[in-house]
């Protein structure tokens, strides 16, 4: 279709992404009678939030004593003091309310005998600022994500949210002053393009686990929204912090939830030793994720790995007995039987760290507004643009996310962003005129894939990128390894210029979608490896062999990566909470 004939539609708010973050925001907006469009490349209830089986954190104190301030302490400590304490306080205080809201929307949380919501212990949770283990994670059996997504989707249907299912967002649209005014999207079924003009746009496109070869993330997690922000001239923040989940099925990537260790499972090396006793004497197997991931890596590196290649450790659950496994961890048993042909009630499970969660993302404040440095101001608001969920960096997870805090994050900040949008809409009553050049650029980016002839294969480039990232930007990092990573990703980007697809049809052209996703992954990979190379310290998930210590004097700051010239910038961590005293950095011992 020629660019002049592309249909245009107008909404108060455009939400790109229909996971928990996007749907929570959409519901808040639709209930406030804003006109809302939700664009999602997959059917909304197939968004990645569906995979979150473990649960969400809130200090309800239903099982053990708890309060939001302890939750806040754990989150700040878990973040290795890189989290912004104003946003963390806001999230932990809002958590109980958000859980009750979700219950009201129809999420069937598991119950205790007294009728209250059941809460399980997860890694990194403590009572009384670092004391005994807390139990803070609310779950709907092992299908929390499914329940949340389906409840929110139903509520949105009721509230008359406009869904654009199986539409792919290509790029953000702006005016010359830099105000964000919507997005250029196309219908995956028909190939038809559409310009969505919106007074406000919220990115809620999820994470970028597909950067890595071994990952827990589904194939849809390609960092699209992050790359859109980069192309719009905005930075990505703290991209060096990628969480590796300690217990992925070795060689395949699938997650064995922390719940398995919460229920009493533990890790052993080839000698049968409980390895976490050495690395985290107090919290042992429930120490936070980066600590457990590094412990496994170290055991393997030092020759205490299991299996013929000595390339993994074992997670033991057999001592729990078939009944407990069946009752509390019903999914894990079948996952092991299906993919490994072993029953964890009888045999330990081979596990190794797997790429799990993107802590970095599009910088926002605690109202979900996207912020970027302008001249001497580190955080200037980008008018009309919001971000929430895993694609955003608000930053509540800092250098390391705690299990159960992400579902909380997407719901709390999806909601907060919507509330801010509702206020913003009161002042902004009209659609601003678009800069048609931004439409042209998005159109060209899409139609570049119409080129015919021979060229590099998208599939091969994607494989090479994932391998490059795993080898050069994984659990353990050094300057040489990372510099090589920078070089290799640049080479891949060069090769990308010569990539071609063979399918040029309009109908269900998935080859084109995959090519666009790969372009997005390439940009996000550069942001990740550049930021990792720059940060000369070890903090949270970012672990440098050549700089093994955390360095609060030089590195208590957020990294910002810009696409133009691969420029880096930094901004201070917000250490001042909203109402309580700040938690000063301390050694992070579990």
């Amino acid at each position, binding site marked *: 279709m020629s660019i002049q004939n592309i249909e245009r539609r107008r909404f108060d708010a455009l939400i790109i992404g229909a996971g928990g973050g996007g749907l929570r925001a959409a519901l808040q907006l639709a209930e406030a009678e804003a006109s809302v469009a939700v664009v999602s490349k*997959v059917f909304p*209830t*197939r*968004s*990645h*939030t*569906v*995979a979150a089986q473990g649960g969400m954190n809130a200090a309800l104190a239903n099982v053990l004593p708890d309060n939001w301030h302890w939750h806040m302490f754990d989150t700040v400590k878990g973040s290795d003091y890189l989290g912004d304490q104003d946003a963390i306080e806001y999230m932990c205080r809002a958590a109980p309310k958000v859980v009750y809201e979700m219950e009201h929307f129809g999420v069937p949380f598991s119950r205790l005998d007294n009728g209250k919501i059941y809460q399980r212990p997860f890694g990194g949770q403590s009572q009384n600022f670092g004391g005994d283990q807390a139990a803070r994670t609310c779950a709907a059996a092992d*299908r929390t*994500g*499914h329940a949340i*997504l*389906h409840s929110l989707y139903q509520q949105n249907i009721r509230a008359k949210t406009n869904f654009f299912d*199986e539409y792919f967002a290509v790029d953000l649209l702006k005016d010359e002053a830099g105000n964000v005014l919507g997005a250029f999207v196309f219908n*995956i*079924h028909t190939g038809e393009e559409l310009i969505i003009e919106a007074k406000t746009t919220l990115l809620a496109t999820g994470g970028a686990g597909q950067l890595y070869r071994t*990952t*827990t*993330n*589904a*194939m*849809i997690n390609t960092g699209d929204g992050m790359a859109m922000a980069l192309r719009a001239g905005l930075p990505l923040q703290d991209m060096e912090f990628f969480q590796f989940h300690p217990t992925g099925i070795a060689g*395949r*990537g*699938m*997650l064995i939830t922390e719940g398995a260790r919460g229920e009493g499972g533990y890790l052993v090396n080839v000698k049968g030793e409980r390895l976490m006793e050495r690395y985290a004497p107090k919290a042992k197997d429930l120490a936070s994720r980066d600590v457990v991931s590094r412990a496994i890596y170290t055991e393997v590196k030092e020759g205490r790995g299991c299996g013929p290649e000595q390339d993994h450790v074992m997670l033991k659950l057999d001592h729990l007995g078939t009944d407990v496994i069946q009752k509390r961890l*019903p*999914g894990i048993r*079948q*996952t092991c*039987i*299906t*993919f490994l*042909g072993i029953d964890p009630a009888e045999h330990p499970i081979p596990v190794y760290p797997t790429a799990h969660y993107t802590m970095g993302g599009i910088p926002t404040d605690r109202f979900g507004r996207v912020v970027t440095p302008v001249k001497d101001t580190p955080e200037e608001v980008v008018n009309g643009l919001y971000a929430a969920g895993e694609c955003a960096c608000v930053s509540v997870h800092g250098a390391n996310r705690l299990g159960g805090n992400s579902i909380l994050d997407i719901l709390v900040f999806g909601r907060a962003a919507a509330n801010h949008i509702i206020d913003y809409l009161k002042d902004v009553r009209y659609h601003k005129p678009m800069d048609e050049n931004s439409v042209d650029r998005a159109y060209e980016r899409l139609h570049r894939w119409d080129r015919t002839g021979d060229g590099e294969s998208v599939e091969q480039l994607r494989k090479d990128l994932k391998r490059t990232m795993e080898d050069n930007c994984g659990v353990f990092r050094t300057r040489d390894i990372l510099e090589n990573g920078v070089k290799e990703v640049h080479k891949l980007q060069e090769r990308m210029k010569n990539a071609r697809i063979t*399918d040029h*049809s309009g*109908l*269900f*052209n*998935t080859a084109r*979608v995959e090519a666009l996703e790969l372009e997005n992954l390439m940009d996000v990979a550069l942001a990740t490896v550049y930021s990792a190379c720059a940060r000369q310290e070890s903090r949270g998930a970012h672990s440098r062999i050549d700089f093994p210590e955390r360095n609060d004097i030089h590195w208590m700051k957020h990294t910002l990566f810009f696409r133009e010239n691969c420029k880096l910038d930094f901004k201070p961590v917000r250490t001042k909470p909203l109402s309580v005293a700040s938690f000063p950095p301390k050694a992070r011992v579990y």
Partner: protein
Amino acid sequence: MPETASDSRLRWRCRRGMLELDLILQEFLDKGYDLLDAKQKQLLDVMLEYPDQLLFDLLLGNMISSDKDIAQFVTRIRNTLRT
């Protein structure tokens, strides 16, 4: 491996929210799809309308479908993984 537009549509519908489903369904499409007759393709079509969690429970053996055809088809998919 599927190739027509309706086949591409099917391939896209095999992109799910969970890695486990991606792995099982992609492997099945690559290895087993060409061997399916029209009725079996229809069964696959029906199953792809299921919510992810249900599909996950069926394909990972957490649950057995009360529909005999679906149950058999699930077994067929699971067996493909072991070949």
